[in-house]
Each structure stands twice: as structure tokens, then as C-alpha cells.
């Protein structure tokens, strides 16, 4: 393993310290200097009085998710755990507290057992203290069958859309119930599917999370370095993109004439030039279904450390969601 790190056991803290220093105008990282205080990332300007707070978090290794989305128009706080390990309830509770100015807080949780359990415990804590907290669980990954036989679909790149749109709704002045409802509507209309060309390496582990041959790719990966649905031979981008777009579009039941956001996400080690190839192919596949790609996002936003690969996320739009997507956002990683 070659990584630009000092102590692998302190990778998250060291990285957050740099992040805090580089973006002091936008974010403040709590708990770095007071090692006993719980670690979370808040806004440099503090919570906005009267606005519903929006908080998310999860294991580290998915940067810029979530800390890169803290700021005006998106998250009020983000809670990073150890690499690929959900943050503990005390950290989450501290972030919920910081984001609460009385209007309540929405917790955006990716559907992974660890995230669900830790957030659940934290929400119980915060509620016991009198805070109003609603939770939305994102489960956009169509690679996993949502059935009795799994922990349910995972939350992956679609989380970005939930955070962006919930954040915009909160800025618009929506109540907690309204913000939670619109977030739920995003969850109901967003689907994703990913592919890994290589496995990623957790710093503290030092070797790749799974073994993948030189001529095969893993379809349906999650974002935690876990293997996917099945392994197929390496193929041209067009074919691989079809394996991602078709299940997403089918599961959404996209019909001709509908408008969507198409988000092609890099897993961390794939250059943007390749992401644009996938984007072009994916767009054509959607257009062949008569679907209009009304909004686009291409880049490495929800990553798995140094994994090479990509995911395709499609969000069905309506006028309200489109407007909330377009609303101004000023964070480290998203800005318009």
C-alpha cells in the first residue's frame, strides 16, 4: 500500500485537520483540538437560526461526502467515522445538537446497518434531550435486492441528491416535516448502480478490500470496499454503462417524456475523462428511452478511497425537485 499518509490510524483526523485549515471560511471541524470532544464538521458561520438543520454522516473514505457538502444550501453538519465505519452515537448526537436552533433537524442516513444503528442511538439521545429529529434513510442502490434476505438496499451516490435538495428545502423555510417529506420524495425517485475496476485499500488494513483479476470488473459494488453483485469480464465503456443504466432506469420505471438528473460519479481513482465517456453513453441510453436529461453532474463526489470505477445515479425530476436542485449552494465540493 502506498498512500500519502503519516499514521494510518490517524488518517481521518490528519485529513480533517488539513480540510479545516484549507476551508476555514466555510467549515469548522469540532473535536480536533479537544480530543475528548466528539468529532464533527459544522459550518464556519454556525447554524442558521430558525432554519431546519440538515445533518448527515457515515464512515470516512467517501470524500467529499459528507464534509464537502457542509455549507449554505446543503448540510449544517457532517459526522465522519473511521474509514468505512459509521461514526459513534456521541459524535452524531453532538452534530444534531449543533445543527438544532429550535426548528428541528433532519438526519440523512445511508442504509447500512452500522449507520442505521449508530444514528438511531444518537437520535434517541437527542430526542431525550428535547430535540425534534426526523430521519430519512437513503437506499438508492439497485444492486441489492430489497427483500427479507438482505439488510435492504444500500445508500450510495444518491445521498448527494438527498442532501442537496433537503438543504435547499430547509433554506426555503420549510418545516421539519416538509423537509423530511421532500427528502423522502428524493429517496423514492433516485436510484444508483456502480462498478469497480479495482478494489480500494483501507489505510489501516493495507491491502485491497477484495481481489479482482486484471480482466474482470465487479458490478453492483457498494461504497465501502465491499464486493458487488457479480463479476463480469472487462468490457468497453458502452457495455458497462448499459449494465449500470438499465437496472436503474428499469427500477425507476422511467417513461418517455420524463425529465431526470443524470449523475455520473467517480469512485476516487478514476479520472474525469473516463467519467465523461460513461456520462455520454449513459445519456444516450436514457435518451433512447425518450427520457430528457435535464440536469447533469459528473465527478468524484461519493467515493471509495482510491477505488477505480464509477456509478450512475438517476433522479426523476419534477418542477419542485428541479428548482431545489438549482437553488444556490456554497460548499467545498458543490458550488453554484
Amino acid at each position, binding site marked *: 500500500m502506498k498512500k500519502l499518509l503519516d499514521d494510518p490510524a490517524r488518517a481521518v483526523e490528519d485529513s480533517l485537520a488539513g480540510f479545516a485549515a484549507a476551508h476555514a471560511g466555510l467549515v469548522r471541524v469540532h473535536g480536533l483540538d479537544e480530543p475528548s470532544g466528539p468529532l464533527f464538521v459544522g459550518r464556519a458561520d454556525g447554524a442558521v437560526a430558525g432554519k431546519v438543520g440538515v445533518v448527515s454522516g457515515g464512515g470516512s473514505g467517501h470524500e467529499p461526502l459528507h464534509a464537502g457538502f457542509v455549507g449554505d444550501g446543503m448540510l449544517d453538519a457532517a459526522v465522519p467515522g473511521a474509514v468505512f465505519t*459509521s461514526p459513534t452515537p456521541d459524535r452524531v448526537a453532538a452534530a444534531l445538537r449543533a445543527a438544532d436552533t429550535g426548528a428541528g433537524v433532519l438526519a440523512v442516513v445511508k442504509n447500512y446497518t*452500522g449507520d442505521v444503528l449508530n444514528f438511531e442511538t444518537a437520535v434517541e439521545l437527542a430526542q431525550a434531550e428535547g430535540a425534534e429529529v426526523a430521519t430519512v434513510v437513503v437506499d438508492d442502490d439497485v444492486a441489492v435486492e430489497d427483500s427479507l434476505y*438482505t439488510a435492504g438496499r444500500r445508500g450510495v451516490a444518491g445521498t448527494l441528491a438527498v442532501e442537496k435538495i433537503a438543504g435547499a428545502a430547509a433554506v426555503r423555510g420549510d418545516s421539519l416535516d416538509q423537509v423530511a417529506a421532500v427528502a423522502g420524495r428524493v429517496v423514492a425517485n433516485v436510484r444508483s448502480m456502480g462498478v469497480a475496476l479495482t478494489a480500494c485499500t483501507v489505510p489501516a488494513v493495507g491491502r485491497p478490500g477484495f481481489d479482482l483479476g486484471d480482466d474482470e470488473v465487479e458490478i453492483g459494488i457498494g461504497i465501502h470496499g465491499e464486493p458487488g453483485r457479480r463479476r463480469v469480464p472487462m468490457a468497453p465503456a458502452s457495455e458497462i454503462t448499459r449494465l449500470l443504466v438499465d437496472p436503474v432506469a428499469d427500477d425507476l420505471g422511467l417513461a418517455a417524456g420524463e425529465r431526470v438528473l443524470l449523475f455520473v460519479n467517480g469512485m476516487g481513482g478514476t479520472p474525469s475523462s473516463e467519467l465523461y465517456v460513461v456520462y455520454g453513453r449513459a445519456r444516450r441510453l436514457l435518451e433512447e428511452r425518450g427520457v430528457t436529461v435535464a440536469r447533469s453532474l459528473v465527478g468524484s463526489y461519493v467515493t471509495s478511497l482510491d477505488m477505480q470505477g464509477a456509478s450512475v445515479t438517476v433522479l426523476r425530476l419534477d418542477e419542485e425537485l428541479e428548482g431545489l436542485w438549482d437553488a444556490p449552494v456554497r460548499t467545498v465540493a458543490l458550488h453554484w
Partner: protein
Amino acid sequence: MTLDAAWARRWIGEAAAQVAAAKDGLTELDRQIGDGDHGINLDRGLQAVLAKLDENPPGADGGPVAVGDVLSLVATTLMSTVGGASGPLYGTAFLRAARSAQRESLGASAVVAALEAALEGIEARGRARPGEKTMVDAWQPAVDAAVRAADDGGDAVAVLRAAAEAADAGASATVPLVATKGRASYLGERSAGHEDPGARSTALLLRAAVVAAEAS
């Protein structure tokens, strides 16, 4: 030998040592069907527990004296340092066990009660049942064996020993299972053929409890 607060401290010391030694193995199990961090998570947590216990010596300044006091400190520390799925699960397990063990020492039936409380906590928090290829598949046989040993008139240590042996066998028996809870469930059929890391670490923890009991 009495299972008192001193034993509980020895137990955690032994557990931390065993998990540190088995860290890479546990992580490798998790790499096969999860995300390759279970050994790291648990090791981080138990090291933090050791430090916490050092800060709170027995009796001094209200340092824990009841078995449950020790377990309670273990629970809150694991909860705030392990993270992942296993953090809240082990945290809840120790918290429930602590509540049921608010006494100076544990007899056979108190051991059974503590193990039962731990299992119930895990099942409630994880919405889990036996057969799903999780740590429950080590805890459930452990509880069953503990009940049998107590019914057969075994003392506290014998009960603990029966539980640890059954947990070990239960962990091994997760190998052929197809996971339906936790991260491994994403693999579907591909999860079969690998041992569940949480079940294995459960067996290690219970084994450490026995070693700590036999040590004196």
C-alpha cells in the same frame, strides 16, 4: 473462584489481548464478506476500554466495584469508540448485561441472566434472529448452553465455559450460512463459505471471560 469486578477487569484485559492478537484474522474474515474493518474496529474499542479502566481504578473515587459497574463502563466506551455495526451491538450487549449484573459477584444463574440480557439487547438493536449469519449465531448457542450447564448444576465458571465452547462452535457453524443481515447480506449466496467475523469475535470475548475466571 468468584466472578467479581476484579474478574470483569481481568476479562476485559484478556479480551483486549486476544482481539489484538486476532485483529488481522478478524479483519480478513470481514474482508471476505464485509468491508474489512471488524478487527480494527473492535481492537480500537477495547484499547479505549483498557485506558478508561485505568483511569477508573477499583473503588477509588467511586471507581466501579459491582460487576455491572465495570461492564457499564465497557458498554459506554465501546459505544463511543467502535462505530460500525458491531459498536452499537456490543455496546448494547454490555449495557444490558451490566444492568442485569448489578452485584458484587455472579453465581451460575446470574451468569445465565447476563448472557440472556446481552443476547436480547443484540437482537433488539440489530433486529436480528438466529440463522442470519451474525454474531447472534454465536450468542444464541452460548445462552442455550449456559442454561443447560446451570440446569445441570454447574457453577458460574462451568456455565461460562459451556457458553464459550458453544459460541466457538456457533461461530464455526456460520460458515455455510447465507447472510441475510448486515453487510454480508449484499453478497447473497456468495456469503456462504465464510465465517462471520462478529460471531468469531463473540467467541473470542466469551473465551477471554473463561480464561480470566480460570486465571485466579
